[in-house]
């Protein structure tokens, strides 16, 4: 990595935000919007960007749409930052730093993509890239389901907690059945950590290859501050995508995450905190 020459507004880099203008906003679900920007960012599925609302804050997001001269992110409305984001309009500006982190490594053979909630955003460009494999989405209710009409997603299986769309239950519900039917497959996972952990136990049971994207609180995004650590790995640099073998070594996985001040708390507590 080298220091950023502050001399160009048009190249994306990891040390300084580059300004983009919102080109188009799409409602993906009741609580989720996609924001589209012009610009050519080198991005591999599974990586992330830091999105800056000038004067407010900077937070990590996956790129959910990626083309030669545009890209988009899909954001759920959760707290202070995403609320502000959802209020923004076409023409408003945002800063983008990235691409950051390690992407999914695409494996040969059968693929099974399992996304929970807005974790689906991280898998979306992987769907575009793979052009094969099974897609499983878990959502709260029918009005939370993402990308139902998106090209490439026609075969997606949906699970909702209340059964208002697709099948009732968690997206991990039928994994054993699927395995019996299709045999060895690579699992690509992004979602709430309890879900990821359930997939992990399934994968370990059957010795299946698996890659999961883990969310940890991100600050610098470039491996400097140590904030995003999960055991001895920095999720902004050695993650957010890690493979099953690595997950096996992580004692924090599925159990602990660090708050903004670095305190290590139970993952359930972490997921509830608003900043």
């Amino acid at each position, binding site marked *: 990595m080298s*220091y950023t020459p502050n001399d160009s507004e048009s190249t994306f880099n990891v040390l*300084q935000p580059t300004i983009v203008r919102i080109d188009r906003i799409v409602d993906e679900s009741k609580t989720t919007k996609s924001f589209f920007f012009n610009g050519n960012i080198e991005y591999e599925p599974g990586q992330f960007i*830091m999105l800056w609302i000038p004067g407010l804050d900077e937070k990590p997001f996956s790129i959910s749409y990626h083309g030669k001269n545009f890209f988009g992110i899909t954001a759920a409305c959760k707290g202070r930052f995403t609320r502000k984001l959802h209020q923004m309009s076409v023409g408003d500006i945002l800063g983008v730093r990235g691409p950051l982190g390690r992407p999914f490594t695409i494996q040969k053979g059968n693929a099974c993509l399992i996304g929970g909630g807005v974790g689906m955003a991280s898998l979306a460009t992987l769907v575009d890239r793979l052009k094969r494999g099974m897609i499983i989405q878990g959502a709260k209710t029918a009005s939370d389901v993402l990308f139902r009409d998106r090209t490439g997603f026609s075969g997606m299986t949906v699970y909702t907690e209340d059964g208002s769309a697709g099948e009732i239950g968690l997206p991990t519900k039928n994994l054993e059945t699927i395995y019996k039917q299709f045999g060895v497959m690579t699992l690509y996972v992004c979602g709430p950590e309890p879900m990821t952990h359930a997939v992990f136990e399934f994968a370990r049971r059957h010795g299946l290859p698996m890659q999961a994207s883990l969310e940890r609180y991100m*600050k*610098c995004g*470039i491996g*400097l501050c140590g904030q995003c650590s999960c055991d001895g790995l920095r999720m902004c640099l050695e993650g957010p995508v890690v493979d099953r073998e690595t997950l096996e070594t992580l004692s924090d996985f599925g159990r602990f995450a*660090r708050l903004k001040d670095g*305190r290590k708390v139970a993952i359930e507590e972490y997921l509830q905190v608003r900043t």
Partner: protein
Amino acid sequence: MAAVDLSTELCGIKLRNPTVLASGILGTSNALLQMVAGAGVGAVTTKSISLDPMPGHNNPITVGFEAGLLNAVGYSNPGLHAAIEEFKNLEGMGVPVIASVIGRGVGEFIKVVEGLWSQGFAAIEISLSCPHTPGFGMMAGQSNPHYTRQVVAAVRRVTSIPIFVKLSPETPDIAKVAVAAEEAGADGITAVNTMGPGMVINIEARQPVLGFKMGGVSGPALRPIAVRCVYEIYKAVRIPIIGTGGVSTGRHAIEMLMAGATAVGIGTAVCISGLDVFSAVCREMEEWMEANNVSSVQELIGTAHELYPE
């Protein structure tokens, strides 16, 4: 010639080589320190620890520019209680671990050091020098001879392990502060913390990038300032110095040693060059020392103070 000896000794603490992980870089957990130890560092420093947990400033906390990095982390850390839980079994680390300590006042410094020092740390580093956190360091006027004397004397009474004092390059007469620290019982000086603060404005957004608007400057931009500080401190005190600021190559490390450092802190370069920076710096030092017939680090320390040619 015989193999080069990179080992060095900081007031009794033996280091296999002079590189030290600077405070605030990766030092948030035992596991991360372990990873750095595995990368060949000589000693590691924890992220600064305060009495109470601190969330730090909002993002962005770092921003790069053409000659270095700005940061306004704002001393985010989980506080003393969590640190006691986190930093355990330090013997297993394989390298000495230095605990960096901050406080809003002498009382807080005492409490944190009392709580921490017997965890197995090799030394305590008292940071009086952060330029971007209200209540601490430069923003609280801690980097002056009077305050330094007070804090060091107070901390000296509650711990028997070596005490380092970390100074700011913005201190008007840095050598005087170092002397005050030495007189009050400090065993070493860490020089320097980040300079500035500086500011980077994104001109499309017309806004300072950092969440705190301004932040301390580290990396290449800081290096000659750090070298001058070490040079001045070396002239004034007899206790060892960890020379820190912008070091990213073996030549830089040797320059710090010649200015008067006994060990060399590395921070920002860990991010820019990766964890390999420690072993790369050591390899480059070895190569230079072999080529220049220098067999030990001791032969380099402070040599820039000797007059040339005779």
